[in-house]
């Protein structure tokens, strides 16, 4: 019974729904396509519950850490998460309180997210500097030349040097960089196919306890 609930039934659900969705993508049969759409819609609703479960798990993990020495950051995280949840829920459910959600998004979420995104420039520059200092080989040279070509080609430099750099950047993006990225994409695609097929034939069961 335990084995049935923990392993056999979940594997049947995963393999069955997975094959139905895959066949819905590959075969031009309207019935299979509608079954595929319905199952994907179910998965989206269940994924929303998974997100909520993840939220409670985050609160549980950090409430444990908050009680330990140096747990002030975890306490702040919990407090911020609850305030953010409350304000956004209030703004979405009660139109009269919409200004609260707008304020939170405009003055807290947006500056934090944008500044962290901007900080990537600093992190990338430091990483490039360290790469240049510690590893001096042909591959690193190609990497840095590529980065320089793209950066200089983006600058609005005067002609003729500017035009030449823009042409070089365009060629670099369309030929060598595109070839590398295409190879990488095909490799990632083949890897995804392999992992997905292992799940679909029941060789991998990440859902079993």
């Amino acid at each position, binding site marked *: 019974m335990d084995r049935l609930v923990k392993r056999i039934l979940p594997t049947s659900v995963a393999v069955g729904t997975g094959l139905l969705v*895959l066949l819905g993508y590959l075969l031009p049969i309207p019935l299979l396509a509608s079954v595929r759409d319905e199952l994907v819609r179910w998965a989206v609703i269940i994924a929303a519950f998974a997100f909520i479960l993840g939220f409670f798990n985050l609160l549980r993990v950090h409430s444990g850490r908050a009680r330990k020495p140096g747990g002030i950051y975890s306490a702040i995280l919990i407090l911020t998460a609850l305030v953010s949840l*409350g304000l956004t829920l209030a703004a979405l459910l009660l139109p009269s309180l919409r200004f609260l959600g707008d304020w939170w998004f405009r003055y807290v979420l947006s500056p*934090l997210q944008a500044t962290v995104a901007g900080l990537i420039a600093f992190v990338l520059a430091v990483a490039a500097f360290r790469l240049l200092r510690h590893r001096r080989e042909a591959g690193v040279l190609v990497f840095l030349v590529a980065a320089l070509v793209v950066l200089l080609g983006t600058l609005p430099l005067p002609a003729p040097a500017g035009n030449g750099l823009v042409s070089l950047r365009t060629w670099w993006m369309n030929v060598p960089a595109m070839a590398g990225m295409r190879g990488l994409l095909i490799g990632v695609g083949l890897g995804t196919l392999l992992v997905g097929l292992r799940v679909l034939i029941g060789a991998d069961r990440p859902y079993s306890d």
Partner: protein
Amino acid sequence: MTADLIGLIVGTLLTLLVLSYILGDNPLYRLALHLLVGATVGYGVAVTTVTVLQTVLPALQSNSPDRIRVLIPVILGILLLFKGFPRWSAWGNFSTALLVGVGAAVAVGGALVGTVIPQTAAVGSLNAWLRGGSAGLINGLIAMIGTVGAVLAFAFAVPRQPTLRRLWNGSVGVLGQVGRLFLLAAFGAAFGTALTASLTVLIGRVYSVVIGIQKIIAAIGMGGG
């Protein structure tokens, strides 16, 4: 003090907290990161919950066949919440299995139809190369060698038989080495593009801090004596 002015002070302070990372990892930056995670997660859960409620509730309240179609994923979603309790977590396996099964099928379908087939077809599109004349042909050949090499750069298995291994190293191994250079060319280009984009955002944030401080000073009456 208006809500906008308070917001301006809060936004400027939070920006400065994050930017303090430039001086090295420090408690102010860690505080900003925890604030970011908390605020983002709370916002995401609120939006998700309201979106699901707005999708599910009208269907559940109606008497149409849609009711059953929505009820099943809602029950599976509730079962998934049992994953939070170790004693009953096995009941959540059905929902996880459906998520994994559908996710794997979507990933396989997407990888096959959206990536592997079109990208492989584009590698050898001779007609597209010839449209660009002799330069197009040369560029197409370079791109083809680069793509094949980049794929082979991930071939780590080597035949055991010495003759086959020598043959493998002389062909696949060499192409893989060339492919690694093309991969680095792509990574460098991606690095340059990411650096340009994030620099633009960083300049925007620094500018907003300057403007924010000017506005705060003006609002609290310190500007211009």
